[in-house]
């Protein structure tokens, strides 16, 4: 059956295919190379850096994007950011950092730009046939790889809500990724929809630039300032994790008391779960803008009507510009959904330990988690584990089978019960538990084989 394609496909032997040259893809390439694998990385755009590169046509950057997690918690563990950088570097600095990472480890020579993977097909010997579609109209190429790592990210396919009457709406509606310049807000009445980090950041931009800003939020979430107790907030909270258990609860409550009370004063019900559960909103300026009236909070949008927008609470407004900061949905176009354990129409793959395909041993996904902390270190350890796994699998099938059982039992321990209706929290994991699980996985893989 495979005769035709096996003749046509160019066999890359033991090489590994990495899809995507964003932060996760770059880290995957580096860690695979460090473990002695040959790597081909395919990037559909013409630049590296993924979401951090404004030249990427799918870039989700909005004006003044900064990290929401601090430098020390976000840098790649074995390639720290310069220590004279600010605590919360900007998107431009992140791109500088990722470019330096690629240059330092000589990754660019393994990246094929302008090459989209149209599909991957499993072939015999748990290998993959990868079909590469170049952007510039040439014929597709077929190549065979020993393994595939998907690192296409989950911040590029906008999640667009459909409100009644929206298609008849006569004003301007933009998704947050289309708002590249804060001058578009100037002098306008702006409606920002969505209470995640992007929505809150854009509302703050509008608060200082626009004539007026209304912020529509469907459900309340935790609001953390970027600093707690004189330290970057995520660092301060992570440090508490190393305290004894009985103290941890007490200290966490104490440190969060101020932000919690401020949020309550601004009419935000703090959800019951702690701020480490779902991704909290991290912005210190937002509540102050709510407090000085430059951001007015409303509930969910009920419908669009001509030039007007009405809210669920019955109020109405006439915005000049509507910004939908409604986030992104994960979308993996390059692999058949069945391989990733997707059932039905859900866009959310069900992966073992959030990285391994449940169907095929040599297919993995890097960076498809929302741990509520900096994601680069998580991806580093994920790809470290994947690279070691491919190594072990090659040399010792018996150990590999045992390991497989461990991974299955590890999966699911760090799931967070989605507490609301929002489907976006399907990718959320408890960072502490997930890191511990990754640690156990790596320990198993790095053990000396039993003689």
């Amino acid at each position, binding site marked *: 059956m495979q005769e035709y394609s096996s003749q046509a496909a160019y066999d890359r032997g033991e090489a590994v295919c990495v899809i995507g040259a964003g932060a996760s893809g770059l880290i995957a390439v580096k860690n695979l190379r*460090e473990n002695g694998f040959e790597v081909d990385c395919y990037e559909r755009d013409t630049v590296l850096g993924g979401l951090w590169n404004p030249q990427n046509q799918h870039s989700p950057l909005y004006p003044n994007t900064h990290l929401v997690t601090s430098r*020390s*918690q976000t840098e790649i*563990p*074995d*390639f*720290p950011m*310069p*220590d*004279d950088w600010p605590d919360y570097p900007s998107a431009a600095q992140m791109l500088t950092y990722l470019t*330096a990472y690629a*240059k*330092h*480890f*000589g990754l660019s020579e393994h990246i094929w730009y302008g090459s989209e993977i149209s599909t991957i097909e499993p072939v015999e010997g748990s290998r993959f046939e990868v079909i590469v579609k170049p952007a510039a109209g040439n014929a597709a190429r077929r190549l065979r790889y020993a393994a595939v790592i998907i690192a296409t990210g989950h911040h590029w396919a906008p999640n667009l809500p459909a409100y009644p009457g929206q298609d008849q709406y006569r004003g301007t509606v933009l998704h947050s990724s289309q708002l590249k310049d804060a001058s578009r807000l100037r002098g306008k009445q702006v409606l920002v929809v969505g209470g995640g980090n992007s929505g809150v950041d854009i509302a703050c931009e509008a608060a200082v630039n626009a004539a007026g800003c209304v912020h529509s939020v469907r459900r309340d979430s935790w609001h953390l300032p970027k600093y707690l107790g004189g330290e970057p907030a995520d*660092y301060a909270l*992570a*440090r508490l*994790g*190393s305290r004894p258990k009985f103290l941890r609860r007490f200290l966490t409550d104490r440190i969060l008391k101020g932000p919690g009370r401020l949020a309550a004063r601004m009419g935000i019900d703090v959800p019951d779960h702690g701020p480490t559960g779902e991704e909290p909103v991290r912005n210190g300026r937002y509540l102050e803008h709510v407090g000085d009236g430059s951001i007015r909070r409303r509930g969910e949008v009920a419908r669009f009507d001509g030039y007007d927008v009405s809210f669920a609470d019955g109020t109405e407004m006439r915005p000049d510009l509507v910004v939908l900061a409604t986030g992104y949905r994960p979308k993996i176009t390059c692999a058949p959904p069945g391989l990733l354990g997707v059932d039905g129409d859900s866009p959310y793959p069900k992966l073992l330990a959030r990285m391994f395909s449940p169907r095929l041993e040599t297919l993995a996904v890097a960076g498809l988690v929302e741990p509520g902390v900096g994601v680069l*270190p998580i991806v580093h*350890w994920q790809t470290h584990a994947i690279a070691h796994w491919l190594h072990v699998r090659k040399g010792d099938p018996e150990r590999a089978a045992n390991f497989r059982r461990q991974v299955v039992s590890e999966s699911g321990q760090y799931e967070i019960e989605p507490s609301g209706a929002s489907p976006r929290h399907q990718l959320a994991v408890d960072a502490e538990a997930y*890191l511990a699980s*990754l*640690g156990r996985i*790596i320990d198993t893989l790095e053990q000396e084989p039993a003689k």
Partner: protein
Amino acid sequence: MSLSAWVRRARTPAPAPVAREFAFLEPADLFDLEIKDDPEASPVLCCTGDPAGAAAFNALWLKRIAASGRYAGAVSVRGQGGTPAAEGGVEARAHDLVQAAVTVPRQAVFIGHREGASWAALAAGRYPAAGLVLVSPRQFPKQPPKPVGGPPVLLVVSESEAQSKEAQAVTDAYGVAPLTFAGSPDEVFKGAAAEGLLDAILSWLAPKK
């Protein structure tokens, strides 16, 4: 670097940043047509326990390394040479070394001399160095971290030190036999013995890129 070591480090306060003195020489800086820049060769980053810091390598080392076609850099950690003193022990000095390493264009080889060898060994535990060269180590950690990415390790000691406990500790930790050089372990920066030592290191590096 193990995951648990990273978690521990990410949850302890980072050392105070200092403006580090950094000296470097690229092959092209030597204005010598005979010297071929080898773009494949790993850059070299030197540090020493000598209080002069990076300046100690100016006399001979940087020129000679650059003449072999490699980027040659040297850094003064906190309290040495032109780098202001700041709080922090060996971990902070290893931090200075890693911070210097990430500014080097490509994955660097660490060459550490005296206390510098200990800092280089700690730094290699959190940065994937392309190689680790320990020259007459002093105050070497009892259990140095496993070097990230498994770089090749070279131990060079003077003849008088071949049986010292530092040399033994390094041999135990990395499983490498020491290479010996003639002369005093503190006089490695100039003179005939220093040239011989440096050439031995560079010829060890040459096939490894």
